[in-house]
C-alpha cells in the first residue's frame, strides 16, 4: 500500500489504463497512479428514438453499459427520462459519443463533452492542484483520495512546484532567435539555437536532471515546442517533454472568435502529459495574474493547470457551473436548444437595457467619494436567486423583477447562485484580507494575483448568462440581472441624495458622490450602511479623490462621456479610465507622457501649481521626439486586426501593416495584434515584425506629436490648457529651438475652447 499527502498535478484519459493521475508528494516524490473510471453521457428523445439507439448500442463491441434513468432537466424544471450510456474507459467515451451523435443526430445529448477533470472532481471532490491524502495499492491503482483543503480555502498550503522556464532571446515573429534561455531553481543556462544537436542533448539532460512539473515558456505553443519537436524527430533525440512515457504531445488548433464584440485570436496549443506546459505569450490574462492567478483559476474551476492557463474566464465560469450541475445530478446539455421566449416588442424596450449610467458633470471635482457595489452582478444573481430555472414567466410570487413582467422562484436555490456563492464569498474575503495586508508582506502579490483571477471569473459570469453558447444561459435571466442592477443603483442614488450628497456620476455599479463635510473615509460609512440597507447588496468605498476630472467627448467637448476620467485619491494613488494612459492601443511614448503629467499634477496639493512643470515636461518630450531621442519601440502602436485582409474596403493602418507582413511571408489572423510605426508617405505605416529595420528618419513625427498633444490636452484641459493651446505653445517652442516644425493641425469644426478664465498659473506656463 502507498499512502501519502500531496497535490494532484495532472490527470488525463489513457487508452489502456482508463484514468492516469500525477501527484506531487509532500516529501518531494512524484507519483503516477491510475484508476478505473467509467463515464456516462445521456441521450434524450422520444421512447421510440431511445429504443432505436439502445438497440444500436447493444450491438457495439466496445464496453458500454446502458440504463434507463431519470435526470433533472434544468430548463424543463423537472426530471426527464434519459438513456444513460456508460463507457468503461473514459478514453473511448469521446469517440463513442461522436459516433452516436452522428448516427442519431435528432436526439438531444447531455453530459457528453465534459472534461475528465470535472467528472473526477464531481465524483471524488478532488480537483487539480488540490492538497489531498492519497492511498493506492501496489499496482498503482488509486484506492482513496480525500481532499485536505477545498478550493475555497483562503490560504492554501503552497505547492512545491518545480518550474523550468524556456524562452528564446527575441520574439520569433519579430526576428530570428539565436539563443534559448533556460532558468531552473535559480540556475540560468543559455543554449545556442544555431546547432540543434547539442541543444537537444543539453535540454534533455536538464529536463531529466530537474524533472520539472511545469514548463513555463515564451512562444512555446506557437514556435518553440513545435520547433523542438521537429528537430528532436529529425535528430532522433527524444526530449522527454512528457512525463508519461509513450505519449506524444497533444496539439490544439489555433482559433479566432468573438468575445464582447471584439475579435480574439488564440494561437495553437501544445499540452503535455504528466507535466504542465504554459506558454506565457498564449496564456489568458497572464500579465494580469501570472502563475499564482492561473493556479487559483485551476483550483476553483477544477480544470487542469495547462488548460486553465489557456481558457477564457467565461469557460472557467462555465466549468464551475457544469461541476455544480454534475454534483447536483442536473443534466449538462451538449447543445442548448432553449430560445428566448416570445415577448411583445414594447417589452423589449424595457427589458433589453444594460446598466444604468448617469452622465458625469464635466470638469474638476474635489473631495469626491467613489463607492462601488462589491461584484454587483454576481451578488445580484446570488442574492436574488437568478438562474435559468428560477425565472417564472407567470408571476405568482412576490419576487417580481423590477420593470420586467417576470418573477423569481425563491423556493429553492438556483443552479447559478449555487455555483457562484462560494466564488463570490471567497472574492469578498480576499478583498478584505488584501485591504489589511501591508505592502511589504511577501504574500501580498500572491493574494493580489489570485484576487484578480477571481475578479475576472466573476466579471464574466454575468455575460455568460446571456451568451449564446453558455450551457446554462438564458436571456431573461440576463435581463433580470440588469433590471435589479438599475434598481439598486437608483436606490443608492436616492439614499445619497437623501443624506445630502451631490451625485456626480453613476456608472452601472458605482457612484461618485460629493458632500461638503464628509471628506474622510469614516464619514462615508453611514451612507454605505444606508445603501446596503435599501438594496440588500454589499457596497464599499473605493476611495475619496482629492480631485477627479471627468472629460468630455472628443467630438464635442461639452458632451460628457461615461467612464472616461482620471483622479488622485487622498493617499496619492492615481486612477485613470478611458484615456490614453490606460488604453492598450496607445503608444508607450504617449501613454507614459500622459501618466507622467498626471503624476506631476498629483504631486502638488494644488494641481494648478504643477502646470509650469507639466508644460515644461511636455516640451521636453516633444523636443526629444523631434531630435530622435525616443526609441522606436516607444513609438509602436499595437492594433488588432479586426477582420480578414480581403474584407477591408479601405485598409486600416493595422491592415496595411499586415499586408507588409504578408508580403514578407508572415501571415496574421484576425484578432492578432500587429505592432507598427506611423511613417511618412505611403502606406503610412511600417510593420515592426518585417525582416527589414525601420528607417528612423521615416517616422511620422508630426503624427506622434499630434497624438501626444491630444493626450496631454485631455489631462491639462481642465486647467485651461487644451490641445490647441498646447499646440500653439509647442510651435513657439520649436521655432525658438530651430527644430523642424510639423504642419500645424487645423482644428476640426467641433473643436472649441471651453469658455473659462485662464488663471495666473496657466499664464505662467504659457510664458514658459
Amino acid at each position: 500500500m502507498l499512502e501519502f499527502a500531496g497535490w494532484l498535478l495532472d490527470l488525463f484519459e489513457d487508452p489502456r489504463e482508463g484514468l492516469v493521475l500525477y501527484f506531487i508528494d509532500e516529501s518531494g516524490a512524484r507519483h503516477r497512479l491510475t484508476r478505473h473510471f467509467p463515464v456516462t453521457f445521456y441521450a434524450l428523445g422520444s421512447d421510440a428514438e431511445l429504443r432505436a439507439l439502445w438497440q444500436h448500442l447493444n450491438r457495439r463491441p466496445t464496453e458500454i453499459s446502458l440504463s434507463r434513468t431519470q435526470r433533472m432537466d434544468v430548463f424543463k424544471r423537472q426530471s426527464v427520462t434519459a438513456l444513460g450510456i456508460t463507457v468503461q474507459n473514459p478514453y473511448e467515451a469521446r469517440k463513442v459519443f461522436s459516433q452516436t451523435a452522428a448516427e442519431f443526430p435528432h436526439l438531444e445529448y447531455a453530459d457528453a463533452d465534459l472534461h475528465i477533470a470535472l467528472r473526477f472532481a464531481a465524483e471524488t471532490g478532488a480537483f487539480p492542484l488540490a492538497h489531498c491524502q492519497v492511498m493506492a495499492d501496489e499496482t498503482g491503482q488509486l484506492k482513496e483520495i480525500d481532499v485536505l483543503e477545498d478550493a475555497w480555502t483562503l490560504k492554501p498550503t503552497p505547492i512545491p512546484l518545480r518550474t523550468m522556464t524556456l524562452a528564446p532571446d527575441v520574439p520569433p515573429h519579430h526576428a530570428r532567435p539565436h539563443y534559448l534561455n533556460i532558468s531552473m531553481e535559480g540556475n540560468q543556462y543559455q543554449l545556442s539555437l544555431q546547432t540543434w544537436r547539442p541543444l537537444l542533448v543539453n535540454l534533455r539532460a536538464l529536463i531529466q536532471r530537474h524533472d520539472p512539473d511545469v514548463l513555463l515558456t515564451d512562444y512555446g505553443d506557437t514556435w518553440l515546442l513545435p520547433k523542438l519537436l521537429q528537430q528532436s524527430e529529425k535528430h532522433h533525440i527524444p526530449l522527454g517533454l512528457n512525463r508519461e512515457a509513450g505519449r506524444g504531445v497533444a496539439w490544439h488548433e489555433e482559433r479566432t472568435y468573438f468575445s464582447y464584440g471584439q475579435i480574439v485570436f488564440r494561437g495553437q496549443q501544445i499540452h503535455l502529459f504528466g507535466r504542465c506546459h504554459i506558454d506565457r505569450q498564449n496564456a489568458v490574462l497572464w500579465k494580469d495574474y501570472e502563475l499564482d492567478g492561473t493556479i487559483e483559476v485551476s483550483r476553483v474551476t477544477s480544470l487542469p493547470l495547462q488548460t486553465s492557463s489557456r481558457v477564457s474566464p467565461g469557460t472557467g465560469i462555465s466549468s464551475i457551473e457544469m461541476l455544480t450541475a454534475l454534483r447536483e445530478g442536473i443534466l449538462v446539455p451538449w447543445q442548448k436548444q432553449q430560445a428566448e421566449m416570445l415577448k411583445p416588442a414594447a417589452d423589449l424596450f424595457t427589458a433589453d437595457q444594460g446598466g444604468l449610467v448617469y452622465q458625469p458633470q464635466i470638469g474638476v471635482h474635489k473631495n469626491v467619494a467613489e463607492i462601488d457595489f462589491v461584484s454587483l452582478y454576481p451578488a445580484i444573481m446570488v442574492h436574488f436567486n437568478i438562474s435559468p430555472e428560477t425565472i417564472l414567466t407567470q408571476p405568482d410570487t412576490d419576487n417580481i423583477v423590477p420593470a420586467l413582467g417576470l418573477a423569481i422562484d425563491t423556493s429553492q436555490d438556483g443552479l447559478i447562485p449555487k455555483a457562484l456563492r462560494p466564488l463570490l464569498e471567497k472574492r469578498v474575503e480576499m478583498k478584505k484580507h488584501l485591504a489589511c495586508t501591508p505592502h511589504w508582506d511577501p504574500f501580498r502579490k500572491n493574494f493580489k494575483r489570485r484576487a484578480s483571477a477571481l475578479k475576472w471569473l466573476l466579471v464574466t459570469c454575468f455575460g455568460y448568462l446571456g451568451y449564446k453558447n453558455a450551457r446554462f444561459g438564458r436571456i431573461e435571466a440576463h435581463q433580470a440581472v440588469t433590471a435589479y442592477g438599475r434598481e439598486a443603483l437608483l436606490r443608492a442614488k436616492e439614499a445619497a441624495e437623501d443624506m445630502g450628497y451631490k451625485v456626480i456620476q453613476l456608472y452601472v455599479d458605482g457612484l461618485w458622490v460629493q458632500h461638503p463635510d464628509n471628506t474622510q473615509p469614516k464619514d462615508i460609512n453611514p451612507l454605505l450602511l444606508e445603501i446596503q440597507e435599501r438594496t440588500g447588496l454589499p457596497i464599499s468605498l473605493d476611495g475619496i479623490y482629492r480631485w477627479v476630472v471627468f472629460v468630455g467627448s472628443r467630438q464635442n467637448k461639452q458632451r460628457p462621456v461615461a467612464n472616461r476620467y482620471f483622479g488622485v485619491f487622498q493617499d496619492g494613488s492615481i486612477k485613470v479610465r478611458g484615456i490614453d494612459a490606460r488604453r492598450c492601443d496607445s503608444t508607450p511614448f504617449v501613454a507614459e507622457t500622459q501618466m507622467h503629467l498626471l503624476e506631476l499634477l498629483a504631486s502638488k496639493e494644488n494641481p494648478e501649481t504643477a502646470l509650469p512643470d507639466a508644460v515644461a515636461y511636455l516640451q521636453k518630450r516633444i523636443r526629444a521626439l523631434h531630435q530622435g531621442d525616443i526609441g522606436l519601440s516607444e513609438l509602436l502602436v499595437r492594433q488588432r486586426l479586426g477582420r480578414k485582409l480581403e474584407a477591408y474596403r479601405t485598409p486600416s493602418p493595422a491592415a496595411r501593416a499586415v499586408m507588409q507582413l504578408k508580403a514578407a511571408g508572415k501571415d496574421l489572423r484576425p484578432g492578432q495584434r500587429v505592432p507598427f510605426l506611423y511613417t511618412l508617405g505611403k502606406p503610412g505605416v511600417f510593420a515592426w515584425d518585417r525582416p527589414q529595420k525601420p528607417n528612423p528618419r521615416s517616422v511620422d513625427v508630426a503624427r506622434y506629436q499630434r497624438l501626444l498633444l491630444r493626450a496631454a490636452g485631455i489631462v491639462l484641459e481642465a486647467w485651461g490648457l487644451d490641445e490647441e493651446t498646447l499646440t500653439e505653445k509647442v510651435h513657439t517652442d520649436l521655432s525658438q529651438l530651430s527644430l523642424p516644425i510639423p504642419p500645424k493641425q487645423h482644428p476640426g469644426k467641433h473643436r472649441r475652447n471651453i469658455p473659462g478664465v485662464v488663471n495666473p498659473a496657466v499664464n505662467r506656463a504659457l510664458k514658459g
Partner: protein
Amino acid sequence: MEQHITPFPLPKTGKISLVVAPKGVRHSLMSMLAALALRGRVIVVDGGNCFDGYTLARELRRQTHHVQAALKQIWLSRAFTCYQMVAMLAELPRDGTPIIILDMLSTFLDENVNFSKRQRLLENSLGLLRRLSEHAPVAVWARTRTTAAEENEQLLTPLLSTAHDIWELETPTLPEHQLPLF
C-alpha cells in the same frame, strides 16, 4: 449606410416570401412590419439580433397615434444559435399569425458547428417553414454578405428553392470615378 427601399408587398398565406438583400433593407422590412402590426398580431423571429425597434416605432408613429398598442401586436424572439432557430420555429403557433424571420442564415454561419450539421439543421428549419406557411403568411430575409460569402451562398440555395416569391436586392455599386458634379 441605411437606405430606404421601396416597401415590399405584404406576405400571403400559403407562400414563403423571401427577400435576399444586404443590411440596408432592414428599414423597409420595419415598414412592412409596421403595416402588419396595424392589421393585427405578427411574430418576428430575429436570427441576426437586428430587430430595429426605434425605426419601427418611427414608422408606426407616422401611421398611428397608438404606437404602444401597435408595438404590443409584435411578438418577438431572438435566436442566437442554429439550434435555437430550429427549436423556435418548431414552437411557433400555427394560428394564422404572420411570421417574419429576420436574417435567417446568420445563426447558420456559426463556425462552432460543423457545416454538414448546419446544413441538416437548415433543412429542418425549411421543413418547419413550409408547414408554418400552410397556415400563415411567412416572410424571410436572407442577408447578403461580403464575409463568409461562399458558405452564405451554399446555405442560401436551399432557401431559394423553398421560397415562392423572391426579391433579390443589391447595394448600388458606386462608379469608380466620381461623376462630374458641375
